[in-house]
C-alpha cells in the first residue's frame, strides 16, 4: 500500500535582493515525483547541493512548494500553522544530522523526548511513552535526567531517534543521521533504525551522501542530481551496475568495505 506519494514537486528559494535589481530565485527541486510504501526503507543519495535537504524540508512541510503535491495515505499536506499540521507531524517525524545541537540544551532527555507527545497532543502518558522510546533505542532510565551536553554523539543521536519515534510515526525522515558519528556509533545507530523499522513497521527515508550507509539499511535507493531524481532502483542492482554517471561517482567515493551489505 502507498504511504507517501510525491507528485511533480518543485521548490525555489528567493535570493536576498542585491542593490536595486532583483535576482532570479534558486531552483532547488525540479518537478520530482516518487512513491513510498508502508514500512519501506529508502535511501536518498546525491552530491552536495543536489537538493536532498530541500526535498526533506518540503516533505516536512517546512518549506512551501512552488508546484506539486505531497500526499500521506492520500491526504494532501501543505506548509501551514503548527495546529493544522499536528496530524501530519504525528505520522511523519524527523531525525536531524547534528543530534547534540538539535536537542534543547536546557531540557533533560526525558523532557526532550516527551515534548512532541505533549505538543502534538498524542493520547498517552508522556513520561511512560518517553521511557519506552528510550528503552527501544537502548538507553535506560539513568539517561532520563541528563542534559544534551552530558551525552556522547551516538547517545545524543539515539535520544533524537527516541524523540522522533515517541509519537509512533509511520514514516521517519532523516538527514545524514550518522555522518557526525564515529564508526562504532554509526553501526549502532543504523542497527537501531533497522530494528525499529522491522518491529514497528516504520518506513524510513534516509538522506546520505555515503552510499555504503544506505546499502546497510535500505533495499531501495534514489539518486538525486540538480533537483531531480535521476535513478531509483534497488541498492544491490545500483551497486553492481550504476546507470547514471553521478551514481558511479558516488560509488567510487564510498569506502569499499561496507558496500557488500
Amino acid at each position, binding site marked *: 500500500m502507498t504511504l507517501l506519494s510525491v507528485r511533480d514537486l518543485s521548490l525555489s528559494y528567493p535570493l536576498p535582493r*542585491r542593490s536595486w535589481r532583483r535576482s532570479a530565485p534558486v531552483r532547488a527541486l525540479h518537478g520530482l515525483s516518487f512513491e513510498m510504501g508502508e514500512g519501506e526503507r529508502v535511501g536518498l543519495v546525491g552530491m552536495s547541493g543536489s537538493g536532498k535537504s530541500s526535498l526533506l524540508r518540503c516533505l516536512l512541510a517546512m518549506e512551501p512548494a512552488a508546484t506539486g503535491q505531497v500526499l500521506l495515505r492520500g491526504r494532501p499536506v501543505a506548509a501551514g500553522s*503548527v495546529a493544522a499540521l499536528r496530524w501530519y507531524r504525528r505520522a511523519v*517525524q*524527523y531525525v536531524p544530522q547534528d543530534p547534540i545541537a538539535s536537542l*534543547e540544551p536546557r531540557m533533560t532527555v526525558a523532557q526532550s523526548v516527551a515534548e512532541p507527545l505533549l505538543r502534538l497532543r498524542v493520547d498517552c502518558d508522556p513520561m511512560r511513552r518517553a521511557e519506552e522510546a528510550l528503552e527501544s533505542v537502548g538507553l535506560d532510565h539513568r539517561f532520563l535526567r541528563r542534559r544534551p551536553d552530558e551525552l556522547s554523539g551516538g547517545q545524543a543521536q539515539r535520544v533524537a531517534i527516541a524523540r522522533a519515534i515517541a509519537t509512533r510515526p509511520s514514516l521517519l525522515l532523516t538527514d545524514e543521521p550518522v555522518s557526525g558519528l564515529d564508526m562504532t556509533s554509526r553501526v549502532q545507530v543504523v542497527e537501531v533504525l533497522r530494528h525499529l523499522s522491522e518491529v514497528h513497521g516504520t518506513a524510513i527515508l534516509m538522506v546520505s551522501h555515503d552510499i555504503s550507509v544506505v546499502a546497510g539499511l535500505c533495499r531501495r535507493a534514489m539518486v538525486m542530481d540538480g533537483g531531480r531524481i535521476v535513478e531509483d532502483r534497488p541498492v544491490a542492482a545500483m551497486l553492481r551496475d550504476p546507470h547514471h554517471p553521478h551514481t558511479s561517482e558516488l560509488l567510487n567515493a564510498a569506502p569499499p568495505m561496507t558496500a557488500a551489505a
Partner: protein
Amino acid sequence: MIRTLDRLIPALSRGVTLAAVMVLIAMLPWISGRDPALSILRARMGDQDATPEALAAIRDKLGLAAGPVQHMRDWITGLLQGDWGTSWISGAPVLAGTLKALLVSLTLMSAAFGVAVVAAILLAWPTMRRGLRGRDTHSAGAVAAILTAMPEFTLSALFLVVFSVWLAWFPPYGWGSAGHIVLPALALGLPGGGLLGRLLTNAIAATFHERWIATWAVAGFTRGQIARAVLRRSLPALMPQIGMIVVAMTGGAIAVEQVFSIPGLGRAVLGAASAQDLPALQAGILILLVNALAIGVTVNLIRVGLLGRALQMRALPVPQIASPPPSGRLWLVPVVVLILLAALVMAGLPRDAYSSQFIRLQPPGLALPLGADGLGRDVLARIAHGAVSTIGMAAFVTLISLVVGLGIGLMPRIAIGLIEVTKATPPTIAALIVVAAMGPSALGAVIAVSAVAWAPLAAHTAALVSEARAQPHVRIAPILGVGPLRLIPRSILPAVFGPVLRHAMLRLPGNALALAGLGFLGLGARPPAPEWGLILADALPYVERAPLSVLTPVAALALMSVLGVSLASLSRCHFSISLHIWKKYMKNPDNIAFNFNVLSRVCKRFGS
C-alpha cells in the same frame, strides 16, 4: 505574494514610524492640554483680561477653532509650503529664527567634529605607527577612554572653571569671535573623539592582524600605501559608530550651548520649552530630528560607498573590532569608584539637604566638608541625597528599558523603524517632547530617558534572537509541534535574557548621567530636589565666586561616568571572551585541537 509583503515589512515599519513621529510633533499643542490661546494672551497682551471673547478671537486667528485634526493638516501643509507657524511669544514666524539658530549649531558641531577627528587620530596614531613598522599592535588604553567619556555638560562646566575662570584664556560666555568657539567645541568634541579614537585604534589593530598586511609588506608596497589601505579597511566597520557619535553630538550641543550661552538651536529650543512656546518648540524638535536622521542616512551612504559593491554582495567580511585586553587592574577601577560613591552617600545621607542653614557659598570647613551652595544648603548632603535619587531613578529606567527592549527586540522586523528612529534620538530631544506634552518633572525625565534607553537593548535582543533562531534545536521546533509562541519561553528568552540583562545593568550609569543631564537643562527634576544635574546648574551662576561648588557635582558625575566605562570594558572582556569560548568548546573532547588554536590566538592577542 506573501514573500513580497514580507520583504516590505521593514520599509513599512520605517514609514509608519516617521509618520507617527510627525503626528506626535504636530499634535503637541493638544497633547499638552494647555489652552494655547491662554498662553498667547499671557505672553503678548499681559494687560488684557482673559475674557472668552478675547480667547476666541485668538483661537480664530490661529486657526485653532477648527479642532486638532484640521490644525494638524494645516501644520503639515504649512511645513511643505515653508510656513512653520508663528511664535506664541513674539508673534514672529518661527522658521527664520530656527534656521538662523541651526546655522550657529551646525558651525559648533562642525568644529566639534573636527576636534573629535583630531583627537581620534592622535589616539590611534601610535598603533598605526607600530603596525607599519611591523611590530605587534595593541588596543587603545582605557585611561584616554575614561577621561573622554564624560558627558558634555559636565565637561563644559569643568572647562568653564579651568580655562575661563582660573586661567582666563577664553571668554566664558557668548558667540561671535574665534575665541568663543574653542571651549564649546572641545567640550562637545572630546567625548566623541575619545570614543572614536578607541574604536579606531581597535579596528586598526584588528586589521593589522590580517594576513594580507604581511603579503603587501613583502611585495614592497610603501608604508603610505599600506596605511591608506588599512584605513580604508578599518573605517567602514566604524561608520555606524561614527553615526551614533555625531547623533549624540546633536543632543550634547543643546547642553553645551546652554552652558556657554550660545544662541544656537539647542538654546532656542530650551527657551521655547520653558516658555511653552509650542510652535517654536515644534519647529526646533523637527529640525533636530531631521538633522539626526540625515546624519544616520549620510553615514550609511558613506559606508556603502567605502566598501563598494562588496558589502552589498555580502562577500567581504567586515573586520571584527577586538575588545581591549583584560587585565587584573581593570577590576580595581569600578570597585574603587563604587567604594568612593558609597562613602559619599554614607557621609552625606544623615545630613540635611534642604534647609538653608549656612551662609551662602560658605567655603568648606570641618562642619561643612564641601561648603554651602548659593542658597546656603549643605553641598555634601545634597550630593549624597542626589546620588540616591538619581541612581534609584536610573535603576527604574534600566528596568523599564530592559522590559521594553526585550519585548520589542523579539519582533525586530516589525519594529525596525521604531528601533532606528529611537536610536537616532538623543534623550534630550525625547525630553523636549515630553516636556512640551507634560511640563518638566522628574517623572518626565524618567519617561524621556526610558523612551530612548530601550533601543540599544532591543537591537541587542534582536541580534541574539536571530542567532537563537538559527540554532538547530530551534529550527526543528515546528516538527515537534512547538509553535512560535511557545518557542519564546522555551528557547528564545532563556538564550537572550542573560546577556541583555547584563547589557542593561551596564547602561545604568549612563542612564543616571542622562537623567542628570536633563535635570541640568531644566527638563527633569525641579528645585529644590537634590538632583546632580540640578545641583550643577544651580552652581553655574556662581562659577566665578565659588568654583568649588561647580567642581563638586562635576567630580560626582565624573565618578559615575568612570564607573560606566570601566564596567562596560570589563564585562566585554570577561563575559564574551573567556566564558563563551571556555564553555562552548571545552566540553567536547573533539574540540581540543580547536581549543589550542583559539586559546593561542586569544593569548597572543592579549599579549600574555
